[in-house]
Structures are given as structure tokens and as C-alpha cells.
């Protein structure tokens, strides 16, 4: 098994969860109504919790690597950590890698926008993550399978919650329909990336520890279609897809997010908090 690919694969799952969790947390204290402030914050907590499991696993993997294996993933390691002279830890991975080392999907890093953008993005992502993690339960990698299983209950809730909001806003007022339609126009071109495997995903699927994301597209479209019907929304015709996130080519938004998120770790390298 190619450990380099596995390391990247785990990081990618972790980055998705962390970046979307960080975005959703921006709502905390600013939600449209108290109960929903709590709900979106819960999703944020779940996602950051998943990210922690995954980063911890990636760190464990790395610390157990042979010298050659460690060398092979050098490009993904946080530079400041190299001077710390200690084992790799979860926060090194989440809080000290550079923008070009983050492998998250572009859709997770887009600004939170209004409630329509936030809930529709969550729906697109959760519908994908639900399918991905369902299959990941069968991973040949026990750790990944266990993390997927543990997370699935949470993801199922995110999917239900976000589906309900898409329906509510689509089939709500004229304004809410207008806003979610605008959000759809904004977000649609970022959904294709989920199903376009990059090298380490292809390898992961072939070796049985990862998921063949291309194969999830149909089920995902079915789910979206069902929810959209109830929401009186139509699936856009355009099939052009933005890509690059899983290879570290991001939108201009991610830099600002990381700047803020990593501020203290960068200012006080290797401090204990």
C-alpha cells in the first residue's frame, strides 16, 4: 500500500471537515434565530471533531512511517514543525500547513454567505459526505472505517437538517426562493469537484481503503433531485466544474480563513495551549 497516498487521503478528509467547520462557526452568535444558531454550531462542532480524529490518525500514521515514507510526504508537512524536534501532532496538521498544502474541496472554503448559501452548501456537502462515509465504513483501513462509522450518525443529521432548510427556503417566500436560487447559481459549479478523483483518491479506491468518488455521483444527483423537487428548485444545466482544491489550488478565500485560524500557532510556535 502506498502510504504517501493514504496520508494525503486522510488529510483531504480532515481538511474538508475542518474548513467547513470553521466556516459554519462564523454563525455562532449571529444566527437568524436562536435554535438555528445552535443547530449550525452543532454541525460545526461535529465537523471539527471529525477533523480532529482524522488529523490524529494522520499524525499517528506519519509517526509510524519509515524514513523513506516520511520523506515521501515531505511536501505535505507543516514547515515550522520541522524545527520542533518532536512527533507530529494534530494541531501541526490543522494549524500550521500552508494554503497550498490544504486539500479541501473548494466548496468548503467559500464564504458563509447568507443563510441560503450556508444551508445549500451544507446540503451539497453532507449529501456527498453521507455517501462517501457510508462506503468508507468498508475501508480496508480499520481506522478510517471506524472514523466513518462514528461520524455517520452526525452526517445523517446534517443531511436531514440541511435538506429541510433547502426545502423551506425553496418553497418558502418569494425572497427565500430568490436567495436560494442565487446560492444555487453560485455553488453549482463547485459541486463537480467532489466526484472528480485526483491521483491519491484513485489510488485509494483501487487499494480498497478509499472511496471511488466518481461512482457516488448518481446517488448524489438522485438525492439532490428529490430534495429540489420538494423545494421547487431545478438542477442547473451547466456542467462546468471548478477544481483544484484537492491539489492545493484554492480560491482567494482560503488564504484569509487560514490567516485568522492559524494566527496564534504562527505567532507562538510550539506553545502549549
Amino acid at each position, binding site marked *: 500500500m502506498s502510504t504517501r497516498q493514504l496520508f494525503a487521503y486522510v488529510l483531504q478528509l480532515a481538511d474538508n471537515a475542518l474548513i467547513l467547520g470553521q466556516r459554519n462557526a462564523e454563525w455562532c452568535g449571529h444566527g*437568524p*434565530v436562536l435554535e438555528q444558531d445552535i443547530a449550525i454550531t452543532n454541525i460545526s462542532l461535529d465537523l*471539527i471533531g471529525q477533523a480532529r480524529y482524522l488529523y490524529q490518525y494522520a499524525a499517528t500514521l506519519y509517526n509510524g512511517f519509515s524514513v523513506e515514507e516520511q520523506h515521501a510526504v515531505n511536501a505535505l508537512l507543516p514547515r515550522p514543525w520541522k524545527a520542533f524536534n518532536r512527533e507530529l501532532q494534530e*494541531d501541526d496538521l490543522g494549524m500550521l500547513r500552508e494554503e497550498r498544502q490544504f486539500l479541501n474541496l473548494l466548496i468548503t472554503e467559500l464564504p458563509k454567505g447568507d443563510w441560503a448559501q450556508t444551508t445549500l452548501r451544507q446540503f451539497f456537502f453532507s449529501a456527498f459526505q453521507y455517501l462517501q462515509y457510508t462506503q468508507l465504513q468498508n475501508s480496508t483501513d480499520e481506522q478510517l472505517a471506524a472514523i466513518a462509522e462514528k461520524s455517520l450518525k452526525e452526517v445523517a443529521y446534517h443531511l436531514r437538517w440541511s435538506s429541510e432548510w433547502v426545502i423551506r427556503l425553496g418553497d418558502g417566500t418569494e425572497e*427565500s426562493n430568490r436567495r436560494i436560487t442565487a446560492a444555487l447559481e453560485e455553488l453549482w459549479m463547485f459541486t463537480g469537484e467532489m466526484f472528480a478523483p485526483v491521483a491519491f483518491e484513485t489510488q485509494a479506491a483501487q487499494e480498497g481503503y478509499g472511496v471511488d468518488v466518481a461512482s457516488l455521483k448518481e446517488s448524489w444527483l438522485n438525492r439532490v433531485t428529490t430534495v429540489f423537487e420538494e423545494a421547487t428548485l431545478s438542477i442547473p444545466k451547466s456542467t462546468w466544474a471548478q477544481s483544484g482544491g484537492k491539489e492545493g489550488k484554492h480560491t482567494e478565500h482560503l488564504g484569509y480563513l487560514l490567516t*485568522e485560524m492559524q494566527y496564534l500557532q504562527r505567532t507562538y510556535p510550539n506553545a502549549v*495551549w
Partner: protein
Amino acid sequence: MSVQELEKIFQDKIDNEIRIEPKDWMPEKYRQNLIRQISQHAHSEIVGMLPEGNWISRAPSLKRKLILIAKVQDEAGHGLYLYSAAETLGISRDEMTEQLLSGKAKYSSIFNYPTLTWADMGAIGWLVDGAAIMNQVPLCRTSYGPYSRAMIRVCKEESFHQRQGFETLLVLSRGNEEQRAMVQDAIDRWWWPSLMMFGPHDSESQHSEQSMKWKIKRFSNDELRQRFVDMIAEQVKLLGMTLPDPDLKWNEEHKHYDFGTINWEEFWNVVSGNGPCNKQRLEARNKAWSEGAWVREAAVAHAEKRAARKKQVAA
């Protein structure tokens, strides 16, 4: 029954530590007083989300980020319990919200101070939540049933937060030079405002006497403040830090800590809207509320459509 008789039954219950429940008769002033106090408390929870929320995006580790988010979320939960308790007295949450947003209702002035460093997250847990608990524990036995039950839940979580706050500071106090300086600085900035949280001196307090009789309140402002000082003056030693008060010292005769004079001019200034963040806090709440209007409307509209369809199907 005459009002006098009703009042007698009411006061007897209170004197016998029997809780007043929503359907019980109660004096209008008792109701008003409670609405004011509970909603003010609820507003404080909601506005209180903002100073700590200011560090969510910048929390120094993933674990600390989770703890902080969960804590701020708990405050939203407390707000919910308390608004619900107040609603049993015949006021709606929307009405209370309007009072907050228009500036008519007050909230705890402590939240009008800015959070400037990560150590402030610890100091708020330890000092601000600490002072809040000191005020709130007696409220678990307050005379109005829904309020006392809400407070039992709130207090349990708050004391957890206080311990977390102290632990945050403890870790920092064992950290590097800058982290230790951060802790002392945070204590220096939050100490006096925390003391002000107990309100004016008993001699200046407006609502105290009647509240005591109704057992809405069980200890005076100055009593609670003294307890708080006694507690913190000991705990601060564990951090290896000091409180910014040259007059603080143990009084062997009274078995209490003496402490310096509170700057009441600052207190009244902040209460009356001149604090460093009063405008900012209210603006943030107003923004959330007004930008959320279309979402709330959509939810109502959709629920109505669904109900109408259901009815149609049933017919």
C-alpha cells in the same frame, strides 16, 4: 377572594419555600420584576456570546476551538431556557428581543468590554462566569418555579465553564513568558469589571429589598461580592498571578479579604452606554436579527404551506 387574601396566600407560599408556578396568582409587581430580571439574564447570555465568539476563528488549537464553540453554544442554550421561563409570565420572546435590540432592556455590562487576547477566554470563564455563578446559585432556590428550574440547569453548566476557564489560565500560566504575561494582563483588565457585576453597593441598589422579601434574591450585592473576592483571592495564587488591587489583603478580624474602591464612575458610564463595546454589541445583535428576518419569514411561510397541504389531503 380579595387581593389582600391572594397576596397573603402568595407570601405564605414564599415564606414556606413553596415555588410559585405560572398558573398561580401573583402580584403584578412580582411578575414585572421577574420578567425584567429573567429577560435581562437571558439577554446577557445572548450578548455574552459575542465577546467569546470573537476568538472562535482564532482559537489556538482544535481542542480549544471545540471547547470554546461548545461554551458559546451553551450560552445560547441558557438564553433559550431563560426566555422560555420568562414566557411563562406572559411575555413573548420576540417582545423581549425587541426590548434588547432597541436598547430598552439591559444586559450585563461586563460584555461591553473587548476581548483582546486568548487569555481573555480563560479570564471570562474564571472571573466573569465565576461572578455570575456567585449571583446565580442562590437563584436555584428562587421563589418562581420555572426560573429556579432553569437556573439549576444553567448553574450546572456555568460551574463547568468556570472550571474550564481556570484550567485555560492554568495551562497558560505554565506556558512561555508571553503566555504568562497574557494571563496577568487579562486578570488586570477583567478583575474590576467582574467586581462590578454584583451591582451597586447595597445602599444604592434599587430593587433589593422587595426582591429579598419575594425571595427572588437571597443575598445582597455586597455579600455576594465579598464571597467572590474571598474565593478569587485564593485561587489566583494557584496561577502564580496577582489581582490588580494594592489594597487587597486578608483581614484576620473579619475573616474576609479587604479590597479597594470600585470605580463607580466607570460602572455607570458603561451601564449608560459608554462602554468600549456597547454600540458594537447591540449592532451585532441587531444585524443578526434583521438579516435573519427573511429566514424566519420563510420558515413560517413554508410551515403554513405544509399545513394547508396536509389539510387539503385530509379533507
